[in-house]
C-alpha cells in the first residue's frame, strides 16, 4: 500500500526507516503495472530496478518519479509519443531530469502524452490513449495525460509534466491531482522535445500542494544551457506552506464568460472557503480568453512548424511520413502563418495581442495578489472527444492560454468531485511572474481547509 502515500510521506518514511526504499519501489511498481493494464499510462513502463540505499540521504530519498516522454532520458528511449522517434535513444538527459536525479529522485517510467504534446487528451499519441483512472470511460486530459493519470492511479509517487498552454493544469484538473506550471524560465527547457519554445514550461504533477513545493524546489533554477532561464534565486518552496491567507486580495476571473454556467456554482463555493480563510475575493473583468485561442494557435503552430523541421529522417528516428495527422496539420498551418506575406497578418499580429494580454495581467496584479479561475470549462469528457475536432485542445485549454502566453505561473488544485461520475473540477490559481510562493501559499491553505484532495482526506 506504500504507493498511495505522498512524496513528502515517502521521503519522511524512508528517512525514518518506517519502510525500506525497495519496499516503496516494489509496491509502486506493482501498482504501476496494474495501472498500465487498466489505463495505458506509460510509453516506457517502469521496470524493476535495484535502488541504491545511498539515495536515502538525498532530499528526494530515492522516490519513484514518473517522467513525461518528451523529457530526454539518456540511454532510455524518448519518443514524445510519436512513432517518428520510436527508436530514439538520447545521448543526454534533460536538465530537469538530471536535477531530479541529483536530488535523489529515481526515473520511474516514461509517461504517455499527446504526440509532440499536440493535444489535450493523449488521443494524438501514437501509443494509444490513456484512460482517466478516476473514470476510465473518460479522458485524462493532456498533453501530460500519462503523468496526471500516473499520479491519480498511484502508479508513481510524483511526476514531471510539461505545459505549453494547459498541458499540466488541464490533465491535473480532470484527474483530480495537483499540477504546477512554474513561471516561464523558472525551470530549464534544455532536453525537452520542443513544442512551442516561447511558452514551454516543465513542471510537476503531484498528489498534494506540499509535494508540488518539494518538486519545484528541486526542478527550478538557472541553467547555463538554456538562455531563457532566469537567474532568480530558488528558495525552499516548502517554506511558503502552512501560512494563512488573511488579508490577501484575490481576483476571480471569467465569472461572466459564456459556457461556464454549469460549473460556476462550485467556484462560488471556492470563493466562500477563501473568504472564510480571511482573503477578500472580487470578480474581475479580464481580457476575453477567446482572443487567446487565436493568438496561442498562431504562435504555437508557427513555432511547432519550425521545431519539427529537424525530424527530417537523416539523423535519427523515422522519416517525415511517420508524423501523425495532428502534427501534419500543425506543420502546415504553422508554415503558412510564417510565410512571406502572411507573417505580418498572423505571427506578428499575434505577438502584439500577446502584449495586450501581458498588460492586462499587469493591471490586474496592481490590485490583486493572485487571480483564480476554473481550470477548464467542463469535467473530463468521454474518450474520443478530440476525434474530428482539430481545435479541441485549444478550446479545452482556453482558460489557461492567457496566462501561458504571458509566462505566468499557475497551479491546479482539485476543488470539486462529482460523486456520481467520480470526476473532478480544478481551481486554477495564477500569480505574477516569479511568485510561485503566493500560488503555493493560497493552494496549500485551500487544500488544507477542504476535503477535495484525495490524499489529504485519506490521511
Amino acid at each position, binding site marked *: 500500500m506504500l504507493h498511495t502515500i505522498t512524496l513528502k510521506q515517502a521521503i519522511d518514511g524512508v528517512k525514518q526507516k518506517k519502510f525500506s526504499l525497495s519496499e516503496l519501489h516494489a509496491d509502486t511498481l506493482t501498482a504501476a503495472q496494474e495501472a498500465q493494464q487498466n489505463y495505458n499510462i506509460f510509453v516506457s513502463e517502469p521496470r524493476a530496478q535495484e535502488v541504491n540505499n545511498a539515495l536515502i540521504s538525498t532530499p528526494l530519498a530515492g522516490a519513484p518519479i514518473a517522467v513525461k516522454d518528451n523529457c530526454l532520458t539518456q540511454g532510455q528511449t524518448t519518443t514524445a509519443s510519436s512513432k517518428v522517434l520510436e527508436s530514439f535513444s538520447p545521448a543526454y538527459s534533460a536538465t530537469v531530469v538530471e536535477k531530479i536525479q541529483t536530488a535523489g529522485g529515481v526515473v520511474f517510467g516514461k509517461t504517455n502524452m499527446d504526440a509532440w504534446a499536440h493535444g489535450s487528451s493523449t488521443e494524438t499519441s501514437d501509443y494509444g490513449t490513456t484512460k482517466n483512472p478516476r473514470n476510465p470511460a473518460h479522458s485524462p486530459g493532456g498533453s501530460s495525460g500519462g503523468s496526471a493519470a500516473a499520479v491519480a492511479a498511484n502508479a508513481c509517487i510524483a511526476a514531471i509534466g510539461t505545459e505549453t498552454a494547459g498541458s499540466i493544469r488541464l490533465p491535473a484538473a480532470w484527474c483530480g491531482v495537483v499540477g504546477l506550471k512554474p513561471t516561464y524560465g523558472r525551470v530549464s527547457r534544455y532536453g525537452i522535445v520542443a513544442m*512551442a519554445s516561447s511558452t514551454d514550461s516543465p513542471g510537476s504533477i503531484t498528489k498534494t500542494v506540499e509535494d508540488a513545493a518539494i518538486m519545484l524546489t528541486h526542478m527550478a533554477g538557472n541553467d547555463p544551457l538554456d538562455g531563457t532561464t532566469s537567474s532568480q534565486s530558488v528558495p525552499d518552496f516548502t517554506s511558503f506552506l502552512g501560512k494563512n491567507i488573511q488579508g490577501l486580495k484575490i481576483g476571480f476571473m471569467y465569472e461572466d464568460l459564456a459556457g461556464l454556467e454549469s460549473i460556476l456554482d462550485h467556484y462560488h463555493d471556492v470563493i466562500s472557503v477563501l473568504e472564510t480563510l480571511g482573503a477578500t475575493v472580487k470578480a474581475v473583468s479580464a481580457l476575453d480568453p477567446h482572443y487567446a485561442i487565436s493568438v496561442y494557435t498562431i504562435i504555437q503552430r508557427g513555432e511547432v512548424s519550425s521545431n519539427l523541421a529537424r525530424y527530417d529522417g537523416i539523423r535519427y528516428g523515422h522519416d517525415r511520413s511517420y508524423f501523425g495527422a495532428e502534427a501534419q496539420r500543425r506543420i502546415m498551418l504553422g508554415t503558412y502563418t510564417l510565410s512571406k506575406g502572411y507573417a505580418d497578418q498572423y505571427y506578428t499580429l499575434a505577438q502584439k495581442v500577446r502584449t495586450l494580454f501581458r498588460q492586462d495581467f499587469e493591471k490586474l496584479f496592481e490590485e490583486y495578489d493572485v487571480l483564480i479561475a476554473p481550470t477548464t470549462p467542463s469535467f473530463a469528457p468521454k474518450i474520443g472527444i478530440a476525434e474530428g475536432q482539430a481545435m479541441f485542445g485549444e478550446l479545452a485549454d482556453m482558460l489557461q492560454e492567457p496566462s501561458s502566453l504571458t509566462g505566468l505561473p499557475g497551479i491546479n488544485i482539485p476543488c470539486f468531485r462529482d460523486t456520481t461520475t467520480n470526476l473532478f473540477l480544478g481551481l486554477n490559481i495564477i500569480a505574477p511572474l516569479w511568485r510561485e510562493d503566493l500560488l503555493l501559499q493560497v493552494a496549500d491553505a485551500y487544500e488544507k481547509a477542504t476535503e477535495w484532495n484525495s490524499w489529504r482526506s485519506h490521511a
Partner: protein
Amino acid sequence: MHNTPSKYQLICGMEVHIELKTKSKMFCGCKNDPFGAAEPNIYTCPVCLGMPGALPVPNKKAIEWTLKLGLALHCKINLFSKFDRKHYFYPDLPKGYQISQYDIPFCYDGYIKTSQGRVGITRIHLEEDTGKLQHTTIQGEKVSLIDFNRSSVPLVEIVTEPDIHSGEQAKEYGKKLRDLVRYLDIADCDMEQGGMRLEANTSLQLSEVARTTPDLLPNYKVEVKNINSFRFLEQAIKFEADRQALILDKGETPTQETRGWNSLKSETFAQRSKESAEDYRYFPDPDIPPIHFTQAQIDALQAELPELPEIVIARWENEFGIEPRYSELLLSQTEYRAVWEGLFSTSKKDQLNTNQLASLIVNKKISLSLDTAILISAFKAQTTTTSIDESELAGVISSVIAENPNEVSLYKAGKINVLNFFIGQTMKKIGKKIDTALVKTELEKGLR
C-alpha cells in the same frame, strides 16, 4: 577605368561571409576549430548536432567582435537586436533552420573607402555556419557524409550596397575588408579553407541611365558564388560584365541566377535559377532572448578598438612622411604595428629618412628584426655615405674612363644609360659608400 564596355556600367554589391576565430562555437561550448580537427565530428554536442531538446546560448565574444567590426567599418549599431530562425532543408543543417539575423542586424550603414570610391556597408549580421558535406564512395557505394565540426561556428556576413563598379574595385574592397578583420584579430580569413567566402551580385546598367538615374537598379541580378580568391573575384566579375554585355547587346536580359566560378576555365557557369525569391519563413528565435546594448557598452567597445589602419596611415604620413602605399603593406601584419611605430619614432628622432627606411623594409632590403636598434643600424649601414677626397675621386673617374673606351663612345653617341655603368664601376673601385649623386655629377663632367 573599367574593363566593362563603356556602353554599360557595372553595378555590383558584395556579400562576404567570415568565420570568427572565437575559442568556442556560436551557440554551444564546442571547440571552434573546424580546419584543425583531426577527425570529422569530434567537436560536436547536442546543440550543434541539433538534437531534440537542445538549446542555443549565444557566444558573447562573437557578438562583441561583430560590433567591433561594425564600429571599425563606421557602422551604426542597433541597441536592440535579436536572432531569427531562417528555415530551409539541407542535410548539413541539422535543425532545419539556421540561426541568423533578419530585420535587425547588429550593425548597419557603414562604409569602406576604396581608390575608386566609397563602398557602402548595408549591414553586418551574425549567424551560425552549417556542417560540411563530403561526397565519397565507400565499398563501391556512393555516399554523402556529414561533418558537423563546422556546424554552429560563428559566421559574420557583411553586405554592401551596389556601389562597386569594377572587378578591381571588388578586389580592393575584399582585401581591405580582410586586412581590417585580421587587424582586429577576430578571424583568420583563410580563403582556401572557406574561412572567408566571397559572393558578388552583378548586373549591368546602360552608362547613360546610370549617370542620369544612379539610384535605378537593373531589373536582373546575377549572383556569383563560391569564389575563394581575390584574383578569381576580379576575373569572375570581369567575365560576368563581358558575358552580360553580349546578352544585353542582343536586346535580351540575362537570366536571374546563381553562377559558380570555374577557375580552370576562367569562366562562370550557371548553378541554379533564382527567378523567385525563396521563402525562409524568418521569425525571432524564441530560444534566445532579444539582446539590448546600452550606448555606454558601445562606447566602451569603440574605445577598445585599436587605432584603425586608415588613421595610422594618415598619421604616419603626417608624422614621419611615410608614403601610404608602404604603410598599408606594413600594417597588413597587425602583430608588428607596435614595432614599426617605435622604429619610426626613433628614426625621426635620429633625423633619418623615415620614408626611405619604410621603403627598404617593404622591399625586404633590410632583413627583418623586431629590435629597433638593429633595424636602425642596418638602415644606417645601407644609406650612410662617407666623404671622399675630391682629387681621389677625380683620379678614379679618369681611370674608369680610360679603361672603357667602348662605353665612352656609346655615351658620346647618345646612349646616356651607360652612365649607370660608369657609376657602378667607379663605386666598385672606390670600395666605400659615397654619395652617388656626387659621383654622377663628376662623371658627367669627366665624360664631356
